[in-house]
């Protein structure tokens, strides 16, 4: 059986699956990276992902267009961002607890709305794969990298965009400044709360997209669909040392572990107690990575600290 795993066709399945599985993690962790670089911790992205997932399913099922689902996920993510910004920036609520509140809100709200508005989770038309011309036809490589749904390509593109924004733009400089030394940034005329508002909105929109990325490829929804992916995405920000490329690497690593475990199951390589152990691999990986990374890399100095100009 192991010989079946180490074949080119199996490798293609694992790597293509890695990229698909990494996409929701990537959207969510990229958004959270931007937020944390500006000093905002949002533990509620699991809830925002759920709301994005439900809204994308509902909008796509009602309009018949998965792209309306993408739009709905962005809009609801933005609304949740405004809510979170109001609570944390205007009312100066403690960010950790507020995030848990957002998570509970997303969990409960999607559960209620799903039961009242949807009921039976009939599969809807999802996003078709975009085969990139010429590249998709390359043997093996094409199948792994260039035959995915558009959200996969968008997530990778956003890694580049986020990297450029953080390192090469004034807005990025402001983000880093308010995340490290908000008082100093304020004295230089940078609006700390306005900068954080933008990163919260962007982060929540991307969490909404992460939810859509779970739903739209095959067009189905179920309660608690995210199954803890939002919390793992927060861990991936630490894994990635608050850098978009790090979040990208972490997402791919997580996707890879999940894909390998999945392929073990698909080929019947592991069963029983062994499969239980392999299923624990992602959780073990999270703990190990966080233990290593947290010793080496410092987080943004003002992370999770509310800013109040009046002290």
């Amino acid at each position, binding site marked *: 059986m192991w010989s079946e795993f180490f074949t080119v066709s199996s490798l293609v399945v694992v790597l293509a699956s890695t990229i698909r599985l990494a996409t929701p993690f990537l959207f969510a962790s990229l958004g959270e990276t931007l937020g944390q670089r500006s000093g905002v911790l949002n533990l509620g992205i699991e809830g925002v992902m759920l709301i994005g997932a439900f809204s994308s399913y509902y909008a796509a099922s009602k309009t018949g267009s998965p792209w309306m689902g993408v739009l709905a996920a962005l809009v609801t993510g933005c609304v949740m961002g405004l809510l979170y910004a109001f609570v944390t920036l205007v009312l100066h609520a403690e960010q950790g607890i507020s995030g848990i509140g957002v998570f509970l809100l997303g969990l409960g709200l999607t*559960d*209620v709305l799903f039961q009242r508005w949807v009921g039976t989770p009939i599969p809807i038309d999802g996003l078709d794969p975009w085969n990139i011309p010429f590249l998709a036809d390359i043997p093996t490589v094409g199948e792994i990298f260039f035959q995915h749904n558009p959200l996969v390509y968008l997530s990778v593109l956003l890694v580049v965009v986020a990297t450029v924004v953080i390192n090469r733009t004034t807005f990025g400089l402001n983000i880093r400044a308010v995340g490290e030394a908000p008082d100093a940034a304020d004295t230089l005329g940078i609006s700390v709360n306005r900068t954080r508002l933008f990163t919260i909105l962007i982060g929540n929109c991307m969490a909404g997209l992460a939810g859509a990325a779970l739903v739209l490829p095959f067009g189905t929804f179920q*309660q608690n669909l995210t199954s803890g992916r939002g919390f793992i995405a927060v861990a991936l920000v630490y894994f990635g040392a608050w850098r978009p490329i790090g979040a990208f690497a972490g997402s791919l690593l997580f996707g890879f572990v999940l894909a390998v475990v999945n392929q073990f199951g698909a080929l019947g390589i592991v069963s029983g107690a062994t499969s239980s152990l392999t299923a624990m691999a992602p959780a073990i990986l999270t703990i190990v990575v966080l233990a290593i990374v947290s010793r080496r890399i410092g987080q943004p100095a003002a992370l999770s600290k509310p800013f109040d100009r009046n002290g």
Partner: protein
Amino acid sequence: MLTIKKRARTSPAVLAMSLFAALGLAATGCSSSSESTSETLAPEVTTEAAVETTVAVEPFRIAVISPSAKNDSAFSQSIFDAVTRISETMEVEIQVSDGLFVVEEAAKAIRGYAEDGFDLVIAHGSQYGGPLQEIAPDYPDVAFAWGTAVDTFGLANVSSYSVRADQGGYVMGVIAATLSAAKNIGVVGPVEVGDAKLFVDGFKSGVGSKDPDVKVNVNYIKSFGDVALATEAATAFVANGADVLTGTAQMVVGAIAVAKAEGIPWFGTQSNQTALAPEIVVASQVYHWEVILATIIADVKSGVLGGKTHIATLANGGLVIEYNDAFKLDPEVKALADKTIAGLADQTINTGVK
């Protein structure tokens, strides 16, 4: 004596956090307790005498607690459909608390219904066994039913119920073996326990009895709710050459979506899953718990509140294979399946699953 009174001032931050937490908890609670539906359903009566009789009888009060939505097209829907069918035969009051995947919340609901004096409290989920074992002794006059399980904890007011899901799985396996040209079938399972394991083992046995050369790979994804992972598991099966799929538990909606997109035959279980993908669902093994519930209710009415284990089978009608008429199944295959059902019912065929 001077008394200084401090006027407590609640900061906006505390208020905001409280509001968020309250909103979240309210919404979460909404999805469970306040989602509870209360219905008094009476059977249709056609004669005046029957009307008089029905009016005079107090409705039998049933509460159902389930882990997922009552319309999940799988486990929870099977019990909701069952009590609905019961309501067509007798006057009942039904309350449903669904979506209680958190056991502690379910325990509160179980105790609440017992406190309210319901005649029968159904804890529909094997994970509810622990709290039920603690709660049931506190309410000796209330009957509890627990499934899928075979343990009554030695309590006189607890019945357990389970299902020979291996029987339906076996029938599905026989059919599936005839449909798999690639001789490669994928099964998406949640956790290797209970009726999920029985179904999967029965399915494998059925495939093997028809064609031992057909390969059946099973991927237990270790989750009842991770639709995305179930989707990816099904995708991996297809990528590895599977041309027939099945699976069990509520997360399989993702796998069904893959089967639908790929045009691959799917076998359902727990509830009739035809509505999810009429093009590709071949048949569903459906749990008709009302057969079991009717017995339990009769026992309760006669003063026996529990202490028994009830098993739904093909023989007693608690387990039914429902074909999807829209799927063009070869008449010979259907005849073979019917023969297998009859053989399992009269025990001339054994699934071999222990």
